[in-house]
């Protein structure tokens, strides 16, 4: 519970740091991108704190490149 609160405090601090400037200058697109990224970051961090099993992007990359790597390994052994 405590780490989750900590993360929420950090993301509030980040938004308090960046939002006023974005709101003042009417940068709607930047604001949306900022909010979406911050939401992704917060939810990822909270999921990590709660020990949710997150998919590993490098495993997908491994899946895609495995045939090529096998080819290299067999030809250059």
């Amino acid at each position, binding site marked *: 519970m405590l780490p989750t609160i900590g993360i929420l405090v950090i993301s509030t601090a980040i938004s308090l740091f960046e939002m006023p*400037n974005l709101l003042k200058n009417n940068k709607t697109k930047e604001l949306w991108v*900022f909010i979406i*990224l911050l939401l*992704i970051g917060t939810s990822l*961090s909270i999921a*990590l704190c709660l020990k949710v099993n997150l998919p590993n*992007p490098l495993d997908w990359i491994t899946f895609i490149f495995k045939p090529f790597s096998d080819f*290299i390994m067999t030809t250059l052994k």
Partner: protein
Amino acid sequence: MDKQMISVRQLTIIVMFFSIGTAILIVPASISQEIKQDAWIATFLGVILSLLVVKLFIIVGNITTNLTLVEAFENILGKYVGKLISIAFVLFTFFAAGELLYYLGDFMQSAVMPETPIVAFGIMFMLVICYGVYLGIETFARSAEILFPIFVLIFVLFVIFISPQIDIKNIQPILESRTKPLIHSILLFTSIFSFPLVVMLMIFPASVNIHKSASKGIYIGIIAGGIVLVSMITLAILVLGAPNASQMSYPSYAMAQRISIGNILERIEIIMAFLWITTIYIRTFMYFYASVLGLSQILKIKDYRPLVLPMGMILIAISLIVHPNIIHSNTFNNEIWLPYSSVFAILLPLLLVVVAKFRKIKSE
């Protein structure tokens, strides 16, 4: 936001630090695993091969004089294909930055401070990087310039202090390994050493003030980085011996632990760790900077700074996800990284050059 410019000398120093990067920490183990005491030959040939790779990047840089790589994708390959490739490229740099953050945390935890959780190092390191990206490439380049003399001094001291421990028997017999594993380790080394330099195309033509001498600067930078790495790997084999070096996760650090001058100058390995902490910082910064700048250019945002902190937050999370353990990261580096990075470092630049020629986009 004003356009920030760096000088050729700063570019040279960044290229040098960037190419040394994590290689100084990982490469000795993974290459000496494959070809034992001939690892230094593979490294040497790999540096020469890297000059060709860099030549390709410079050709791309000359086509896209005022554009970063992400802008060039869109300009040359068209709006939709370009955007798609740019997203893939941004993800490539972003995951690579996460990996580096993991390496640093893992190194600090397993070798230096075993009781501290890995995320603590990630957060501390990321704060510095976010601050650097926030201030921009110009400030960062100047800080690299300041770090350079300290780096050279510590490297020279390292070489001098470790030289009494050299045992020439460790490197014999020379040229024992067969051709195919040698080629594989040359490619492996090049993929870690110079393929990631494709990230430099995010700053190389666009934010360097003198274009003409910039390519010379890149060559000098990569040769300097090559000298550091070749001597580091040769020393690792000479001092530790190939069987020992291949079984350690951080041979360079183990080597630094062996420094002992007259029983007085001992246990200075953490000062020597300055070498790779600096280079890993520069490499992580460049990856992260490229992904933040790339994302803002994909979305056509003029000022990337609002994106820095949230992306840094995601990166810390990514660094905890990408590699569950050191075995996972070793297999990824030795098997997957070569084809994966060659897509971004060889295929895409070649595609850019060919399409630019076909569509007759000339450099200004």
